[in-house]
């Protein structure tokens, strides 16, 4: 029988029980607090890593110590990195059968609906419980087509050449301080390779969950979609809440080869003490395309700007994102696109909701290189303010280095109008239902891009977030 302990830190979080139940769980190994080369060696040793990876980690640690936090960043002075245990290894080792997984872990995943989802419609599930991937499966027919879907630790050992060639080349450790930190202490995550011409017809999904108090989460995702292939990858994140500030500094590196297409969907629902400093980037070759679907909920501070590097002629990128900032939250999110070749196109469609003093910032960059003629970019930012205490900013940067481009940009910041609420209430809807309906409608363009169970989860999250403020 699992003992469940509940901690409600904020009054308006009462309705988040489903996501905020912490399991009593014992860990077989815990690193000392703080970051030293010895800890890095220990982590690497535990994972039986090749020497090149250990060297990479040590080099990253050095860069981490050299770099400062960017000057424009939201306030993260509360975050004491030395006080965060960077590595927590769950008791269990890799399992292939759901039945073999310890009950405590299973229970958490059952609560989040993971096994059902896996049984019902998904091609494979890699679920990360704290730092190690504990459960992994891929349908046999994908294996037969040469699709690789495994955890990063195994990938480093089993596909060393391919990993060494790609690992943190898309997001180098020198990129920023937290990328360097990631390079030093990364743990867990997924590796996917889709061979030339293979179309993976059902989504692959991974579900990350951070559970240990004070534990960081530094998973690494590396996906290569080879020429003409297709993949839809879904990443879901949900963390229960603890009194110690938690840090998430994951890294996602995506490689889309010529004529390939990748859709990368995320619903992140972090506990409200989490610092989510995640880096996601995709390099797109000729005529390839990347589609980002991104939902950012929870966390205390988020800094997240998925970047598309359109490297080959005719490459395209589409970003669709929604951010929901409630009481005590500062969510600084957006998207970046670099048009590095002619005839490339990009679309950014970002929506944000701010309520109860929450701050939602859209920050984005579109860069168009001198040689990238005949490029096209459309940016649209839409913010919805639920009250007068909240804040919403739009900081779009356009850096255009040639004349033959077609750029469209629009930004809207709106409030829920009292007349719209009244209109819906004359049709019998309560005030809270009317508000929820308007917010659901606002995010509908994103919800409709998600697989059904994720759209449902997003609607549930919105409902939970809204209930906090309405009496």
């Amino acid at each position, binding site marked *: 029988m699992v003992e469940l302990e509940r901690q409600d830190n904020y009054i308006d979080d009462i309705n988040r029980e489903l996501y905020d139940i912490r399991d009593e769980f014992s860990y077989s190994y815990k690193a000392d607090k703080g970051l030293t080369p010895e800890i890095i060696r220990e982590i690497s040793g535990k994972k039986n890593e090749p020497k090149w990876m250990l060297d990479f980690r040590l080099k990253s640690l050095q860069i981490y110590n050299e770099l400062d936090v960017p000057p424009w960043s939201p306030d993260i002075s509360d975050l004491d990195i030395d006080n965060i245990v960077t590595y927590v290894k769950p008791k269990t080792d890799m399992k292939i059968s759901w039945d073999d997984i310890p009950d405590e872990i299973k229970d958490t995943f059952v609560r989040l609906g993971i096994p059902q989802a896996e049984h019902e419609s998904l091609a494979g599930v890699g679920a990360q419980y704290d730092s190690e991937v504990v459960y992994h499966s891929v349908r046999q027919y994908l294996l037969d087509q040469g699709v690789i879907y495994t955890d990063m630790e195994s990938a480093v050992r089993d596909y060393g050449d391919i990993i060494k060639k790609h690992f943190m080349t898309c997001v180098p450790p020198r990129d920023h301080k937290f990328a360097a930190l990631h390079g030093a202490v990364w743990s867990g995550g997924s590796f996917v390779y889709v061979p030339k011409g293979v179309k993976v017809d059902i989504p692959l999904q991974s579900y990350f969950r951070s559970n240990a108090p004070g534990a960081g989460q530094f998973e690494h995702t590396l996906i290569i979609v080879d020429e003409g292939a297709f993949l839809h990858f879904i990443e879901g994140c949900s963390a229960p809440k603890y009194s110690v500030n938690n840090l998430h500094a994951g890294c996602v590196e995506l490689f889309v080869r010529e004529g390939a297409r990748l859709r990368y969907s995320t619903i992140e629902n972090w506990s409200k003490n989490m610092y989510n400093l995640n880096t996601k980037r995709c390099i797109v070759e000729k005529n390839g395309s990347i589609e980002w679907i991104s939902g950012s909920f929870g966390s205390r501070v988020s800094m997240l700007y998925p970047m598309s590097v359109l490297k080959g002629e005719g490459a395209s990128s589409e970003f669709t994102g929604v951010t929901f900032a409630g009481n005590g939250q500062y969510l600084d999110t957006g998207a970046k696109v670099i048009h590095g070749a002619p005839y490339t196109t990009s679309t950014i469609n970002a929506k944000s909701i701010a309520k109860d003093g929450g701050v939602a910032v859209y920050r984005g960059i579109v860069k168009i290189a001198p040689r990238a003629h005949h490029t096209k970019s459309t940016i649209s930012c839409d913010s919805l303010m639920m009250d007068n205490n909240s804040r919403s900013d739009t900081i779009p940067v356009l850096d255009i280095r040639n004349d033959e481009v077609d750029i469209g940009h629009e930004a809207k910041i709106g409030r829920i*109008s*009292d*007349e*719209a609420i*009244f*209109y*819906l*209430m*004359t*049709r*019998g*809807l*309560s*005030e809270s*239902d*009317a508000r929820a*309906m*308007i917010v*659901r*409608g*606002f*995010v*509908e*363009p994103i919800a409709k891009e998600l697989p059904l169970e994720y759209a449902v989860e997003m609607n549930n999250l919105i409902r939970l977030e809204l209930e906090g403020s309405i009496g």
Partner: protein
Amino acid sequence: MERALLSVEDLHVAIGEKLILKGMNLRIDKGEVHVIMGPNGAGKSTLAHILMGNPRYTLVRGNMAFEGQNINSLKTDERARLGMFLSFQYPEEISGITLENFLRSSKGSITGKNPSVLSFYKGLKEKMSGLGMGEEYAKRNLNEGFSGGEKKKSEILQMLVLEPKLAILDETDSGLDIDAVRIVASGIREYMDGEHSAIIITHHRAILDYVKPDFVHILLNGRIIESGGAELIEIIENKGFDHLRESAKSGV
């Protein structure tokens, strides 16, 4: 005497500091159609909105009762659940929610029981076709990008689906061409089956060629200055509101 469906007594209503309705009385019984006419600024829309509890309007004095229950302090949705409905002069556009899903939620809220998807859609389709609305409107976002005429049809559709006991139609016929007026009017006629009641607020007589009123009230400067039958429409048509204004002043 039978209990009134709606009774309004000594109604004083303000927007901000400005008093708009200055002592209005009205009684509507089951099955009756009441027409309210009056020049711009007379307080017609104010009446419609205060009856539904729009928070922008302040009830200064007076009482409103629906089926004998005082509704002065009821919220808008509670009034809707009692069986009151307002067709808006300028319906709101709501993004991301289809007309069908919206109406199914509304119907569920009002009846307390969610209708089944299939049978609801079937009924909706029939009512839409009666109003000359193609099936595709069910999947469109609520009023979003609808023309003026389409919005008014959408309002009448909502009335037919939600089946209120009392429908308040605020200039539902304004801005419509002759064909649209005929379609909207036929929708109202379908609804007026002797059981249902309506308040029709209008400037034009065209709609009254299709829907026969039991009572006509002339609203002027926040008060009903004259009540009567359909013959009042003729007087307005021939002599205008100014004539009545003069009569009101001279106390005739």
